């Protein structure tokens, strides 16, 4: 790195000086109009001069920084020229002040406006174009199982949104870190300062993927560790894209990846059994736990490190009382297994009050689904097993507000095949397991080989 480059790197530090100083000067300018603040007046010219000088230094360091080739495009040149204008105008401002106070007041507004725009553009350069607004409009919900079908475009619908949200800030037209742009197919193919970053069909040889998989604390890891990281699903999708030839126009149907991608989304989106809330919870009341144990209810922390509880009702003959007692542990109970019990639709009211539940087994029971609507308050529910019950599609739809549901099991219920589409639409994030898998009878299943095969 040359000395010039190092000087350039002081730009982000220096820019804050003219911004602060000039804003202060402008504030004094307007305040000093009031009787009370008149004593500020003599300081103003000195402050503006100071601001102008630091602005000059910012311009110089900024210019040096832009020379490293990582910044390019409109934003940079606007930022550059506006910066220079602000500097010149501040010097002009000092001169105008010595002429007319009124003119100075008007002029100060012009400086303030230009200063703000310059500062904003500079911010966009370092933090990304949508830095300000990204919190407002997150469009990252595009990925769920239901949104994938044969027509989904591999690049445009799946890959590009990932690059856009995780890489564009540093690898786009205005900011080309590592001399790499990722914001259009031709740039992606061209690669960065070390050549190509992607080899079609060869995930292992693609620098892009390599960098994602590096340990977080290595400098080459992408995105750099202080930035938002890719989820494992996103990494998987980029891998599949490259493995399937890194095509920019094919659909997932053409690539024969539809089911595979659905599975990836599910397997990563579906919570394993392990979903429990992150926040801590108070200690459960031991005496209630002991009372429940007297009813042969299994109550146990989900792990030795956790105060959240898992409950299994399989051995109890007194589900009603158990559910009543469990209300006092409603903060702690996150998993409830009532499969193969005599639990009834009426009981579901009390189940619905256990609002921290994330996993609920109601499979292998006599439930008709009438009471299902009582589960509506379970907004944290991720896994719901209703297989081998008499639950109907209609009853199920009454739970459509449970958007956190990622795994829904209705195998061998009264739910009709014709209703599945509507149900999937209602539970967009859920993987719905409903069909009977068949393992067909093959002639070889029952025939014994007696002589050497072939």
């Amino acid at each position: 790195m040359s000395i010039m480059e190092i000087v350039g790197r002081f730009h982000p530090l220096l820019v804050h000086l003219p911004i602060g100083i000039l804003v202060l000067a402008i504030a004094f300018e307007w305040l000093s109009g009031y009787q009370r603040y008149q004593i500020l007046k003599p300081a103003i010219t000195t402050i503006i001069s100071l601001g102008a000088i630091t602005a000059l230094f910012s311009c110089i360091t900024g210019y040096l920084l832009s020379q490293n080739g990582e910044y390019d495009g409109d934003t940079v040149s606007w930022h550059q020229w506006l910066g220079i204008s602000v500097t010149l105008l501040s010097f002009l401002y000092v001169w105008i002040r010595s002429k007319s106070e009124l003119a100075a007041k008007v002029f100060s507004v012009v400086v303030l406006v230009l200063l703000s725009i310059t500062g904003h553009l500079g911010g966009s350069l370092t933090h990304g174009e949508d830095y300000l607004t990204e919190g407002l409009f997150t469009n990252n919900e595009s990925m769920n199982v239901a949104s994938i079908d044969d027509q989904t475009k591999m690049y445009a619908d799946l890959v590009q949104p990932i690059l856009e949200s995780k890489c564009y800030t540093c690898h786009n037209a205005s900011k080309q870190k590592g001399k790499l742009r990722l914001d259009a197919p031709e740039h992606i193919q061209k690669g960065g300062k070390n050549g190509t970053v992607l080899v079609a069909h060869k995930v292992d040889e693609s620098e892009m993927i390599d960098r994602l998989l590096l340990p977080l604390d290595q400098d080459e890891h992408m995105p750099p560790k202080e930035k938002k990281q890719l989820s494992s699903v996103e990494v998987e999708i980029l891998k599949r894209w490259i493995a399937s030839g890194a095509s920019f126009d094919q659909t997932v149907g053409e690539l024969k990846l539809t089911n595979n991608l659905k599975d990836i989304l599910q397997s990563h989106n579906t919570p394993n059994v392990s979903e429990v809330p992150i926040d801590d919870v108070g200690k459960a009341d031991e005496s209630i736990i002991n009372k429940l144990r007297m009813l042969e209810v299994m109550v146990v922390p989900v792990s030795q490190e956790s105060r959240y509880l898992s409950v299994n009702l399989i051995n109890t003959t007194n589900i009603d009382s158990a559910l009543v007692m469990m209300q006092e542990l409603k903060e702690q109970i996150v998993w409830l297994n009532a499969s193969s019990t005599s639990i009834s639709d009426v009981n579901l009211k009390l189940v619905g009050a256990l609002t921290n539940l994330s996993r609920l087994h109601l499979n292998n029971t006599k439930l008709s689904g009438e009471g299902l609507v009582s589960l509506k308050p379970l907004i944290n529910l991720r896994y719901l097993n209703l297989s081998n019950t008499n639950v109907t599609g209609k009853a199920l739809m009454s739970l459509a507000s449970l958007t956190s549901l990622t795994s829904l099991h209705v195998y061998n219920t009264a739910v009709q095949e014709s209703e599945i589409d509507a149900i999937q639409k209602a539970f967009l994030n859920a993987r719905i397991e409903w069909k009977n898998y068949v393992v067909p009878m093959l002639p070889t299943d029952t025939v014994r080989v007696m002589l050497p095969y072939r």
Partner: protein
Amino acid sequence: MKEGQRQKINQAEYLQNLENITRRHFLWESASGLGALALGSLFGSCSPLDRKPDSFLSTNPLAVKPPHFIPKAKSVIYLHMAGAPSQLEMFDFKPDLQKLDGQDCPASLLDGKKFAFIRGVPKMLGPQASFQQYGESRAWVSEHLPHFSTAVDEVTFLKAVQTDQFNHGPAQLLMHTGSARLGRPSMGAWVTYGLGSENQNLPGFVVLTSGGKNPDAGKSVWGSGFLPSVYQGVQCRSEGDPVLFLKDPKDVDRNLRKASIDAINEINHLNYQKSGDPEILSRMAQYEMAFKMQISVPEVMDIHDEPQYIHDMYGTKPGRASLANNILLARKLVEKGVRFVQVFDWGWDSHGTDSDLAIDIGHINKCRSVDKAMTALIFDLKQRGLLEETLVVWGGEFGRTPMQENREGKKNPFKGRDHHTEAFTMWMAGGGIKKGFTHGETDAIGYSSISGKVTPYDVQATILHQLGFDHEKLTYQFQGRPFRLTDVAGKVIHEVIG
């Protein structure tokens, strides 16, 4: 009362109790024990104080207990093909081996190696099956597993498992107890010791066997070793009485039975208060459980009530002892809250010494006997929403050689392969394991691993990990040191965890 305080009092009580252990107690214990097992538990019971206070939460040794961290899997079905299936005719496709078929085995593969039966210079034996790639994961599967080829996208293959035991008994022990020698608790025993049982009316650890023979290593592969004996596997049968010696004696009704068990346990309890010996608790728990099991086990072990389409799926016929029936039972048991089901099937030892043990005859029949049922198991667990919390493991105790066996230097009457320790295939599915994934690779002829080598300890560590255990911390104090399943080895195979 504060926890610490309580513990202190317990300790004082315990010391008091130690004084009560008399010579007479010793004789009583020795006499009631059965050989090594009892002696083991006697030693085990000498130092309950060193044990972590939470290993026995209550007086019920089978009460549910939390794992170290939040688990991905809640139960395990372990399908063990005893005798060792041939990876080369099932999953590990080696076209180059075909080119060498019938040629002398190069000396480099034999130097310094020991085989169970191969002597001198054997011939190479090409794959006795054709292979194709299946699923999105493009996994290779042989023509002898037409059903399983449809399930490969649910499965992770471990293609380079390596063991160091080339005889069945020790190798099976190593696979299940973490030691090639007798005396260690089996994996299922460790798991029940660590987690207790979700369903107090069923054993936490059930063993099902088929193929006409128990594993070579005997019942030690599901024994409890030095752990309290409540944790040993309960062997159930799929025809006749599910559990032997469980029925009430003639003319004894259930009430009388209950009364007598209560009386016996009252005495046992007094005894326990005096001696503090956890083995007494074990015995009490076993009496209680046996009583409950009289009703619940025959119920769950009956596959008559499964609908016809399920029988069609698994290829099961109620009332017969078969591997398929056992696999269906395993699903039923897990569904009812059993933690660990170990299924053993004998008959995979395809040396080529007779037609049942020929790689191109009997071995194919064995493949057919497991293919449909193991495939059905995966899909049935999946449709019931249980696959994500049930870990299915499939494998043998070792693999089979790429060379044709020449027992005592002479040609065997049929095509066969000898025991092979360097590299063989296992698979896992569900329970938080990756779908459609392969870990490890063998060389061009399937002789040894070239990447992703794993050992039985690694497999054990991974199984425990999925259940929420740090395999290095699930320990039991015995003979003055903490023991664990993986002894001093084992690394969790993080590559296969989804």
